[in-house]
């Protein structure tokens, strides 16, 4: 059977070139990067190369790159570390309603400790208003955390504008760029970003490794107590192979960004136009202006059918996607991101995210369109909400 992976926003495979670069660091150059002997120094050299590659990719200094275990840790560290260090200055944080749980739940945890958090609304395409952001700033605001690009519907925020506002009011600006790194050009200095989270496995690097970029001069609390790794800011033996892999992955991603995006956007755009043409009663979620969304993302809500059913039927045909379905989460709420952009609750249940990758082909895309058309048709036949009367769809 065909095997078509359209869930690259969940994770990517590790690029074979990346894997090749990693392999020696498991068996040959396995020293502890903190050791003084040659085995350690060789490992450290590889870690330094990775640090330089990452710094170059986002326009910062190598000394501003801190290795972590992934996006969630970077988000937690940036926000909690900021709160801990600057709580005397203020207890107010501004973020958005559509952040990843790694940010939202971190903010909720701080609220329980007495912090005040403003969760900015987004418009019906998922973009915040910089005017509302500016109005939300108070004397006690110590941090603005706005994601670079959304993981569900790919909306890209006006990051440079947000950075300029943060700079004007001298407030630290953190961005969760887990979905953006490798897909969108990033320059932390030009964009006035003070902290940025990334995760290796979203750009064809290995899982369980990430980075927090932190501007030199900005002080935050430590994430973990222990050894003195990462300039005494993040304890724990350095994960050399994973860091080497992430360094290679980001270099490849930035080098090939334009070519990859052209290819991916072509497939995505064809897919979107086919779905809208061939399937009635479907909402295309997120920015309609494709320049305001990630090239890899297509997100639809299919009326009268439930997301998990669509996901499972596609899975049976070898097609791997994600749903914002509530049912599997145990709560009865569908995706808060979909609700935040104004998708009606009953329609939000029928939401599916298709995220394309560099290895997908036009032939695969056509196959997915064909399968999807028949799956939606079949599930609607089964739905008590959908009655086709003389070609007219009525909602009962």
């Amino acid at each position, binding site marked *: 059977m065909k095997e078509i992976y359209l869930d690259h926003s969940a994770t990517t495979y590790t690029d074979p070139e990346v894997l090749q670069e990693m392999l020696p660091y498991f068996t040959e150059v396995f020293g502890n990067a903190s050791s003084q002997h040659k085995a350690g120094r060789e490992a450290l050299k590889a870690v330094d190369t990775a640090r330089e590659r990452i710094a170059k990719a986002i326009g910062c200094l190598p000394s501003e790159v801190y290795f972590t275990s992934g996006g969630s840790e970077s988000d937690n560290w940036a926000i909690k570390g900021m709160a801990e260090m600057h709580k005397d200055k203020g207890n107010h944080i501004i973020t958005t309603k559509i952040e990843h749980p790694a940010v939202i739940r971190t903010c909720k945890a701080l609220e329980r400790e007495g912090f005040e958090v403003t969760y900015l609304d987004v418009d019906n395409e998922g973009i915040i208003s910089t005017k509302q952001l500016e109005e939300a700033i108070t004397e006690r605001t110590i941090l603005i955390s706005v994601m670079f690009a959304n993981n569900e519907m790919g909306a890209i925020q006006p990051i440079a504008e947000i950075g300029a506002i943060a700079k004007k009011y001298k407030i630290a600006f953190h961005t969760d760029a887990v979905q953006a790194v490798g897909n969108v050009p990033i320059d932390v200095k030009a964009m006035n970003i003070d902290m940025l989270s990334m995760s290796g496995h979203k750009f064809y690097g290995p899982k369980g490794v990430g980075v927090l970029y932190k501007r030199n001069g900005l002080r935050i609390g430590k994430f973990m107590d222990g050894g003195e790794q990462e300039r005494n800011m993040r304890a724990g033996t350095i994960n050399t192979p994973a860091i080497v892999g992430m360094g290679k992955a980001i270099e490849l991603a930035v080098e090939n960004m334009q070519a990859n995006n052209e290819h991916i956007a072509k497939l995505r755009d064809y897919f979107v136009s086919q779905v809208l043409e061939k399937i009635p009663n479907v909402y295309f979620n997120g920015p309609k202006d494709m320049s305001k969304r990630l090239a890899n993302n297509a997100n639809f809500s299919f009326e009268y059918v439930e997301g998990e*059913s669509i996901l499972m039927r596609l899975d049976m045909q070898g097609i791997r996607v994600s749903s914002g379905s509530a*049912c599997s989460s145990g709560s*009865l709420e*569908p995706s808060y991101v979909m609700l935040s952009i104004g998708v009606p*609750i*009953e329609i939000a249940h029928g939401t599916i995210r298709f995220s394309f990758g560099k290895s997908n082909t036009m032939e695969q895309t056509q196959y997915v369109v064909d399968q999807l058309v028949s799956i939606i048709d079949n599930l609607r036949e*089964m*739905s*008590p909400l959908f009655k086709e009367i003389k070609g007219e769809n009525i909602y009962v």
Partner: protein
Amino acid sequence: MYNDKVMEAFAHPKNVGFIEDADGVGKVGNASCGDIMEISLKIKDDVIVDAKFRTFGCAAAIATSSTATEMVKGMTVDEALKLTNKKVVEVLEGLPPQKIHCSVLAEEAIKKAIEDYRSRQSK
């Protein structure tokens, strides 16, 4: 996360549709919570001779709809009233814990369809 039996019932559900001249119809759930189930029954001399369903919901909701309608065919209405979601889940050889609430709908829809049948009878 679903076992083969559930996947089979979801992939090839039985009794999909609506009985136009049904003797009892039960519809439960609502679109905002993500699962709606509608069961229609044809009943002769208090015996369920046909059952069909239409479901908006997840794979577990569809699988339990199919299985429950299979199970009640041939039952008397009294027997069908005793059908619990637990028995439906047993026939499916289990559901993931967070999916048990979806199976409750099948039990409720059948009960509601029989109530509808009885209220029509008493008219």
